[in-house]
C-alpha cells in the first residue's frame, strides 16, 4: 500500500514543482524502456555481472579451502589469521587506487576489487563453520577409522556448509556493491573512457548529460540485481543442503 502511495505522491509532487527533467515515475519508466530497448542497460548489467561472477569465483576458490584449513588445523589458523584480520578492516574500495595503478582501469582491476571484497566474509564464515562442528561427529568419524583428511572431506565440509552458505550470501551482496563502487570510481576518475558496466553508466549519465531519470533507472536496476543474486544464491544453497530445516 504505502509504496504505491509514495509513488503517487512522488509523481504529483514532481510534476507540479519540477522542470521536465525532474525524475518522476512515468518518466523513469519511459527511460527504462528506452534503455532496455537500446540494449544499453542489459549490456551494462551483463558486463557488471561478469566481473562479479569472476571475482566471486576467485574469492570462493581461495577462501573456502583456506577457511577449511584454518578451521581444522590450529597451526594454520594461528599463522594465517593475523593476515586475514589485518586486511579485513580495509574496505575494498580503498584498494581501488592501487588496483588501478597495477591493473589499469579495465576489467582486471574491477575483478580484483570484487575478489578482495568477497574473500573476507567467505573466509570468516568458513572458519567459524568448521570450528562449530560438533566434536562428537568428528569423534564418530574417527571411531569408524577415517583419517584426518577423510574426516575433513566427509564431516567438516558438509558440517561447515550452512555457515559457508551464509558467507557466500554476504559475499555476493558485498561483491555487487563493490562492483558498482569500482565502476563508478573508475568512471569518475578515468572519464568516459572507462570499461563499462552499470556503475560507469550511471556516472556517465551524471557527468555528461545529467539524465536524472536514467540514473534512477540504474539505481533500481542495481537494487533488482542485488535481490535476484541473493534469491539465486539462497535457492542454490537450499538445493545443496536438503537437510536444513525450513
Amino acid at each position, binding site marked *: *500500500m*504505502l*509504496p504505491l502511495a*509514495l509513488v503517487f505522491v512522488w509523481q504529483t509532487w514532481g510534476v507540479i514543482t519540477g522542470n521536465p527533467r525532474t525524475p518522476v515515475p512515468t518518466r523513469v519508466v519511459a527511460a527504462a524502456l528506452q534503455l532496455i530497448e537500446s540494449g544499453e542497460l542489459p549490456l551494462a548489467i551483463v558486463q557488471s555481472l561478469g566481473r562479479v561472477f569472476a571475482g566471486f569465483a576467485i574469492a570462493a576458490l581461495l577462501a573456502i579451502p583456506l577457511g577449511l584449513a584454518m578451521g581444522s588445523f590450529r597451526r594454520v589458523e*594461528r*599463522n*594465517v*589469521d*593475523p*593476515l586475514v584480520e*589485518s*586486511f579485513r*578492516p*580495509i*574496505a*575494498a*574500495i*580503498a*584498494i*581501488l*587506487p*592501487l588496483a*588501478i*595503478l*597495477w591493473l589499469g582501469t579495465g576489467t582486471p582491476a574491477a575483478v580484483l576489487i570484487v575478489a578482495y571484497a568477497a574473500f573476507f566474509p567467505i573466509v570468516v564464515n568458513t572458519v567459524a563453520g568448521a570450528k562449530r562442528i560438533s566434536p562428537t561427529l568428528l569423534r564418530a568419524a574417527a571411531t569408524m577409522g577415517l583419517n584426518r583428511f577423510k574426516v575433513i572431506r566427509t564431516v567438516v565440509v558438509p558440517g561447515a556448509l550452512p555457515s559457508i552458505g551464509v558467507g557466500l550470501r554476504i559475499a555476493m551482496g558485498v561483491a*555487487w*556493491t563493490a562492483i*558498482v*563502487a569500482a565502476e*563508478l*570510481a573508475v568512471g*569518475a*576518475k578515468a572519464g568516459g573512457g572507462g570499461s563499462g558496466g552499470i*556503475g560507469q553508466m*550511471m*556516472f556517465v*549519465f*551524471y557527468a555528461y548529460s*545529467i539524465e*536524472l531519470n536514467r*540514473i*534512477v533507472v*540504474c*539505481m*533500481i536496476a*542495481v*537494487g*533488482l540485481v*542485488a*535481490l535476484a543474486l*541473493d534469491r539465486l544464491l539462497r535457492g542454490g544453497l537450499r538445493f545443496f543442503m536438503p537437510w536444513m530445516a525450513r
Partner: protein
Amino acid sequence: MAISSSSRFGTVIAYVRTMAVFIAVWWAVSVWTSNLVLLPTPFAVIEAIVDLARDLELFVQAGISLGRMMISLALASLLAIPLGLLMGLRRTLDDIVDPVIELLRPISGIAWIPLALFIFGIGNALPIFIMTYAAFFPILLGTVAGVRGVDRGLIDAARTMGVPRRTIVTRVVVPAALPSLLVAVRLGVASSWTAVVAAELIGAPSGLGYAVEWYRELLMTPQVMAFIAMIGVLGYLTDTSLRALAQRFTPWAADARRM
C-alpha cells in the same frame, strides 16, 4: 586463567611472526621489481606514514572522515532506532513501512552517489548522506529484530505487575533489545565506513578516500598505502571500541558480541 594468558602470548608471537614474514616477502618482491611507483618497499611506506603524521595531514584527513562518520552515525541512529522500536512494537506500522524498506534496502548507498552528487554537489553533504543511508538499514533491521526477540514472558510479567505501557517500553523492551541493538550499530558503522571511502573518493574535497585518490594521481604510492593503512586501522579501532562499549553496557550478553 593460566591457559588463556599463555595462549594469548602465543597469539601475539604468531602475529608478529606472520607479519614479519609478510613484510619480508613484500620487501623482497619490491626490491626485485624495483618499481617504486607500482610497489614501494615497506620502509618507504613507513617513511610516508611518519612524514604524513608529522605534517598532521594523516590525522587531519582521518579526523575529517571520522567526523563525517560520527555525524552520519548519529543521524542514522536518530532515524532508525525510534522507527525500529515503533516497528518492532506495532505490527501494523511494520506492515506498512516494511515494504518500502525492502524496496530501498537492496539499492546500496554507493548506487546513490550519482544522484546525490547532483543534489548535493561535492562537499560534506554527499558523504554524510551516503554514510547515513548505508548505516540506516542495518541499524533499523537490528532494532526491529531486537524488539521482536524480547521474551514475551518479560513483558507479560511487567504487565501483571501493573507497570504502565510507556514504562514497559523504557524499562523492559529497550534493555532487553539493547544487545542486538548494539550489534546493529556496529554493523551499521562497518557498512558506512565502507561507503565513506567510495563517497570521498568520488565526491568530497577532503577525507581519507579523497587523500588516497589525490596521491594516486600524483603517483605517490607510499602515501596511497599510508592512507589505505589508516582506513584499515580506523575501521578496526572503531569496531573494537564499539565492542568494548557493548561489553560495558550489556555485560550479560556475551553471545551477541561474538558475531
